[in-house]
C-alpha cells in the first residue's frame, strides 16, 4: 500500500503486537501500527476504544504490557514522562499543556532555555521564537502571554514548540475539537507544511470529514482491537462509521417498555441557548427514557446544567408540566422535582473525605431536621434504605467515600439524587468508569424508574448504552441539536452520522468530505 504523497519510505515509528492492561482490565489487544515520514495517519474509534492508550504508548507515557516499539528501524523502549520528546516524538495533548502566565517565547523554550554566562538569553530566545512562528506563517507576538491567546493560537504555539524541538513524529489528540472551521483549515495547512518537510503526523479526530481530507491512512480501533488500517482513498465516511461501531447489543439491557405516545409532556424545552449551546428544543414525556448522544464536548452537559439552573441560559423557554419555569438556583429545580446527576462524581458529585451518610443526605438535608437540628437517626434510616435499594457496598458507613470503588460511588450518587424524589432525572454519563456488572444494575434501575412513571434523560458517550436504554435519542453536535431518532432509526451508525456531521436534522444531505 502506498501513501497518497508517494513516499514508500520505511516506517519511522512502528508498534508490533502491542497489548496493554491496567490491572486486570485489558484495554488494547495486540495492535500493529506504523507511520512513515511525511504521512498523516489518523486513528479513529469510539470513546473507550483505546485510542488514547495507544498514543500514550507511542509517545512513551505508558509502557505496553507486551509487544514492542521500533523507531528508525531499531527496537526501542521509549523513555517515560515525555522524555521521548528528545528523540523527536512529540505528543500534543487534548488539554493544552501551556503555562498561562509565560510568554510565547518562554513557552517554546521551556525546559531548555538558552543561556549566556549563566543568565537567560532573552533576546536570542525571542528572535528564534519569532523565526519559528514565521515559518508557520503565524502572526503571534513572541512576547504575548499565553493566557491572552486564542485556543487556536495556543495550539500553534504547541506546534511551534514541537517544531523547535525537531519533532519527527507529531502526535495530535483531537486537535480540532476546540477549533472553528477557519482555525481548523489553518491547522491543516500547518500540518501539510510539516508533512512536506518529512514530519510524520498521527492524528486523532472524531470528525470523519476531516480525516478524509487530511489523512493518507486510517486505523480503526474498537474495544481495544485493531479493526483495520486502510488508505483513505478506499474509504467513505459511511464505511468508517460502520467499522467503528459494527457490534451487536448484548442482553445487558432490560427490555424496553413500549413508550406511551399519549403520555403527557413533562419537560418541554424550546430554543434554549446558553454558554456553548444554542437553539435546543426537545420534549420529554412521562415514563420516557430520552437518550442524549453526541461526541464529548458537543454540549449535552451544558444543556442539562442550563435546564436545572446550574448555569444561566441566555434564551429560550423551559416548561415543566406545562408551566413555564426559569430556575436560577439548583435548589429550585430540585424542589420542582427535577434532579441532575453529574458525570463528575469525584469533582462535583461526592465529598470524598466524608462518610456515606453526609454524602447521601447533602442534597436533601432539610428532610432530616427535627426542631431545627439534624436528626441523625433519620439520616441513618435513609442510608439504610438507599444501601438496600441501590446495593451500595461499603465496609461500614463511616468509611470515606473516596475509598469506595467507582461503581459503589456511582450507586451512592444515584441514591443521593433519588433522595430528592424527583419526577424527572437527568443522568449524565451514569456508568462512566464502572464495571459491567454495576452497569447492568444501573440500567435496570433506570428502566424501573421509567416503568413507575418517572422520566429519565440519559446523557451518554457510550452509544450502545443510549441505544439499549432509550425510547428516543437526541443527537447533539457542536452545541446544536443535530437530530432526534425514534424506533428503528436508533442505530449506532445513524447516531454516528448525526454526531459526526455527515447527516443533518431533517434531510439526508451529506457534508462534502
Amino acid at each position, binding site marked *: 500500500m502506498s501513501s497518497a504523497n508517494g513516499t514508500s519510505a520505511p516506517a519511522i515509528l512502528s508498534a508490533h503486537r502491542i497489548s496493554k492492561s491496567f*490491572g486486570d482490565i485489558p484495554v488494547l489487544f495486540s495492535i500493529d501500527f506504523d507511520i512513515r515520514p511525511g504521512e498523516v495517519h489518523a486513528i479513529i474509534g469510539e470513546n473507550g476504544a483505546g485510542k488514547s492508550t495507544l498514543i500514550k504508548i507511542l509517545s512513551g507515557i505508558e509502557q505496553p504490557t507486551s509487544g514492542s516499539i521500533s523507531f528508525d528501524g531499531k527496537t526501542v523502549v521509549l523513555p517515560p514522562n515525555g522524555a521521548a520528546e528528545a528523540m523527536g516524538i512529540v505528543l500534543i495533548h487534548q488539554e493544552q499543556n501551556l503555562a498561562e502566565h509565560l510568554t510565547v517565547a518562554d513557552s517554546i523554550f521551556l525546559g531548555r532555555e538558552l543561556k549566556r554566562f549563566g543568565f537567560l538569553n532573552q533576546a536570542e530566545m525571542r528572535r528564534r521564537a519569532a523565526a519559528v512562528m514565521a515559518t508557520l506563517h503565524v502572526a503571534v507576538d513572541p512576547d504575548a502571554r499565553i493566557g491572552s491567546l486564542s485556543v487556536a493560537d495556543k495550539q500553534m504555539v504547541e506546534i511551534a514548540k514541537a517544531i523547535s524541538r525537531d519533532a519527527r513524529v507529531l502526535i495530535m489528540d483531537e486537535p480540532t475539537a476546540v477549533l472553528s472551521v477557519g482555525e481548523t483549515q489553518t491547522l491543516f495547512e500547518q500540518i501539510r507544511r510539516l508533512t512536506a518537510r518529512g514530519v510524520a503526523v498521527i492524528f486523532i479526530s472524531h470528525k470523519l470529514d476531516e480525516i478524509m481530507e487530511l489523512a493518507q491512512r486510517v486505523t480503526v480501533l474498537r474495544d481495544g482491537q485493531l479493526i483495520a488500517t486502510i488508505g483513505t482513498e478506499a474509504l467513505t465516511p459511511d464505511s468508517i462509521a460502520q467499522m467503528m461501531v459494527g457490534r451487536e447489543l448484548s442482553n445487558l439491557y432490560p427490555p424496553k417498555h413500549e413508550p406511551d405516545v399519549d403520555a403527557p409532556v413533562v419537560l418541554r424545552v424550546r430554543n434554549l441557548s446558553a454558554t456553548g449551546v444554542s437553539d435546543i428544543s426537545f420534549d420529554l414525556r412521562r415514563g420516557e427514557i430520552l437518550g442524549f448522544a453526541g461526541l464529548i464536548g458537543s454540549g449535552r452537559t451544558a444543556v442539562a446544567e442550563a435546564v436545572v439552573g*446550574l448555569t444561566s441560559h441566555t434564551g429560550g423557554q423551559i416548561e415543566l408540566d406545562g408551566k413555564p419555569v426559569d430556575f436560577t*438556583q*439548583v*435548589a429550585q429545580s*430540585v424542589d420542582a422535582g427535577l434532579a*441532575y446527576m*453529574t458525570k*463528575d462524581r469525584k*469533582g*462535583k*458529585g*461526592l*465529598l*470524598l*473525605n*466524608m462518610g456515606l451518610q*453526609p454524602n447521601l443526605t*447533602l*442534597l436533601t*438535608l*432539610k428532610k432530616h*431536621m427535627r426542631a*431545627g*437540628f*439534624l436528626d441523625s437517626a433519620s439520616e441513618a434510616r435513609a442510608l439504610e434504605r438507599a444501601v438496600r435499594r441501590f446495593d451500595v457496598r461499603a465496609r461500614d458507613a463511616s468509611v470515606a467515600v473516596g475509598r469506595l470503588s467507582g461503581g459503589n460511588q456511582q450507586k451512592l450518587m444515584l441514591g*443521593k439524587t433519588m433522595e430528592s424524589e424527583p419526577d424527572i432525572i437527568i443522568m449524565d454519563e451514569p456508568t462512566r468508569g464502572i464495571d459491567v456488572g454495576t452497569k447492568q444494575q444501573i440500567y435496570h434501575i433506570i428502566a424501573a424508574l421509567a416503568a413507575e412513571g418517572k422520566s429519565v434523560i440519559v446523557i451518554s458517550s457510550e452509544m450502545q448504552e443510549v441505544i439499549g436504554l432509550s425510547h428516543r435519542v437526541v443527537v447533539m453536535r457542536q452545541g446544536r441539536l443535530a437530530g432526534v431518532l425514534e424506533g428503528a432509526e436508533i442505530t449506532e451508525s445513524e447516531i454516528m452520522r448525526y454526531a459526526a456531521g455527515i447527516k443533518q436534522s431533517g434531510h439526508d444531505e451529506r457534508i462534502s468530505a
Partner: protein
Amino acid sequence: MSASAPDMAAKPARGFRIDLKTAGPLVALALLVLLGVTLNENFLTYNNLTNVLARSSFIGIIAIGATFVITSGGLDLSVGSMAAVIAGAMIMVMNWLIPSMGIGWGVVLAGMAVGILVGGVAGVGNGMMITRGRIEAFIVTLGTMGIFRSLVTFLANGGTLSLNFEVADVYRPVYYDGLLGVPYPIIVFALVAIGGEIVMRRTAFGRYCAAIGSNEQVARYSSINVDNVRLMTYILQGVLVGVAVLLYVPRLGSASSTTGVLWELEAIAGVIIGGTTLKGGYGRVWGTVVGVVILGLIGNILNLQSLISPYLNGAFQGVIIILAVLLQRGRRR
C-alpha cells in the same frame, strides 16, 4: 485483588493514627498540665486556672467563629483589628451617651449592643466582598485588617480611647466577677463553645460549612447556596468578635492602636492546633477550645517557672502550631 492487600497491611498503622487524630490535642493538653504541675505547685490552684481561662476566653470566642470560617474554606485575618475598632466604637458610644442616659447599666447595654452590631456589620462587609465580589478571603481580610487598624488609630488620634471611670466601674464586674466563683468570661466562652459545637455537628449550617470547605463544586451541585453560607460564616465571625470585645472592654476600659494585635494569628493557631484543617472540609469546635487553652497554658507555664525566659512564649507557640500541622499532614496520607 491488588487493592485489598495494602488495605490489610495498612490497617494497624491507620487505627493508631485515627486515635491520634481525635485525641491528639487532648493528649497535648494533658502533657502540658502534667508539666505545669511538676514545675510549680501554684499551677493547679483554682485562681491560676481561672485566670488562664479568663484570659483565653477572648481569643477562644473569636477562634470559635474562625473555626466556621476555616471549615468552609475561608480565612479571616481582620479579627484582631476588628476587635480594636469594636472596642473603640463601644467606648466612644458609651462616653457619648453619658450626658443623655446618665451613669448606669443602660449605657453599658447600649455599648454592648453597638459592639455586636459593629462586629456584625464588619462581618457583612468582609463576607460580601468575598462572596459577591469574588475576591480571595486572604486578600479581602488582609485589606480590612489594615483598614480597621488604621481606623482605630485615627479614632484614638494616635493615643488611647478611655472609658469614663464611673461607667467603667459599672461595667467592671462583667470581666472581674462571676457566677459561683466562675468568672463571666469563662461562662460566656463555655456557652459559645457548647453552642458552636451544636451548630457545627447538629445543624444543616454546620454540615454545609464542611461540605463547602471540602469541595465547593459538590456543594453547589447539591443545591447548597454556597455564597449565603459563606457570608453567614463571616457574619458569625464578626458577631463573635463583638461578643469577645464586650467581655474585654471592662478589663482595661480603654482601646488603642495596640488593642487586639496578633489576635487573628492566635485564633487561627488555636483552630489549627485543635485539628480543624486549614484547607477546610473538616472542623471541630471542641478542638478549637482545647487548642486555645493549650496556647494560654504555654504562656502561663513559662511565667510560672524560672528556667526559660517567658519572652520565648511566642517561639513555643510557634513550635506547637508547626507540630500540629505536621501531625495533620501525617494522618492525611
